[in-house]
């Protein structure tokens, strides 16, 4: 067993678990935060995306014990009914889902992606690598390619993200 201290959505948790426990399984099975989803368990779908120390990662491909002292934000920590984050609201307003299974990962991913864009990170479709890419639909799709939606709600997902991106720019 491995002792690990995690701060999840602002709350401290002392986890005592087999070192094989992934961060995703720790969140869902040990801590009871079932918002983060297991799609593939192999880094191929993005349903398990959470934000660790400000960065989005696949929680299925990392061990909980590697995150001693880290700050983790899951979809539950972004907002709650009655107090939704801008992206959570925009996904509701634009119907950015059908079954909803990929949605928590999409929203965590998009939250951190907007910060990456704000920090001037380029993407594979950026014409030049200089700072300050405008988030065109092509940029949004490329930057969100790590989140697969089996229902193909992509047009509405992009609409929701674009609205928040433009709101943040204005």
């Amino acid at each position: 067993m491995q002792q690990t201290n995690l701060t999840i959505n602002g709350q401290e948790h002392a986890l005592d678990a087999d070192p094989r426990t992934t961060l995703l399984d720790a969140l869902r099975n040990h801590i009871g935060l079932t918002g983060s989803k297991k799609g593939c368990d192999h880094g191929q779908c993005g349903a398990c995306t959470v934000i660790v120390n400000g960065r989005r990662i696949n929680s299925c491909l990392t061990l909980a014990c590697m995150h001693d002292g880290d700050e983790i934000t899951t979809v539950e920590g972004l907002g709650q009914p009655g107090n939704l984050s801008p992206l959570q609201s925009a996904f509701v307003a634009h119907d950015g889902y059908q079954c909803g299974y990929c949605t928590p990962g999409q929203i965590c991913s998009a939250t951190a992606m907007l910060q990456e864009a704000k920090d001037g990170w380029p993407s594979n479709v950026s014409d030049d690598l200089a700072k300050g890419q405008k988030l065109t639909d092509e940029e949004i799709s490329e930057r969100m390619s790590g989140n697969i939606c089996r229902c193909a709600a992509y047009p509405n997902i992009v609409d929701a993200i674009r609205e928040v991106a433009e709101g943040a720019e204005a």
Partner: protein
Amino acid sequence: MKPFTYARAADTPEAVREASGPSHDFIAGGTNLLDLMKLEVMAPDKLVDINRLDLKQISETEDGGLRIGALVTNSDCAADDRIRRDYPVLSRAILAGASGQLRNKATTGGNLCQRTRCYYFYDTAMPCNKREPGSGCQAIGGATRLHAIFGASDQCIATYPGDMAVAMSALDASVEIEGKDGASRTVPVRDFHRLPGDRPDKDNVLEDGELITAVTLPAPTGGRQSYRKVRDRASYAFALVSVAADIGMEDGKISHAALAFGGVAHKPWHKPELDALLTGKEPSDALFAEAADLLLAEAQGQGGNNFKILLLRRTLRAVLREATQMGETA
């Protein structure tokens, strides 16, 4: 996943000491190792977590290059202002790989050591000389869409799947390695990965316990750099073929040429004769055809990947045209 013991190393000597032993592995981002451990393709009995080591900086070297620490994430490397300005082929190659989430975790050292995506390597029900030496190679005569056209052996026809190292090969970067008792050595990226030969289980030259501490880039050549990756979907897919180029132009002639190719061999493919053929010549389609002939003379399809030969010819021509046309203004 098989059980293992977990150790967190505080510094490089401790990491090397802890990882010495046949079934001991470093874990960095974990994005390749854990994937393979879940499938029990890899089953180390000890994991040495190196994430607390002080190898997260990109610093300038005395000869005008950059030293990228082994734990610099792919995201940080691709977004670094100096790399974007002086080594755009490296930013481009990294950004063409995996996804935003994976690049946030993937490290410089781990990316170099990522293992093949051969379907049979991943399937423990199948024979595979890389996973289980002596068991055979199910890919030969099987599904070979992802497989090598250069440097394969009768024991293994797998490819090295990564993008980052292809750019590093074109840039002629070096890998800094630390071993037992503080012994260190430097290996050119071009020599870091091996051809499969009769030891397909060995992907690269690292010996037991050896740790990659950094990758150093020589001073930029001032050439025009590009990375072109062709794949089955527009994003979040491995290369079928890729071309990394650093091409300098002077007085209408190619003054510097360095090309490396991904998705085609057990290592980033680099052919010095190709760089030499282009250097000093005026760019033309005839020259580019000659270059492709030289590159592809030893290409060998496996059936399902025969298309890569023509695809590589065309991708090379496209990259050379782009690089030399833009360079003409110099």
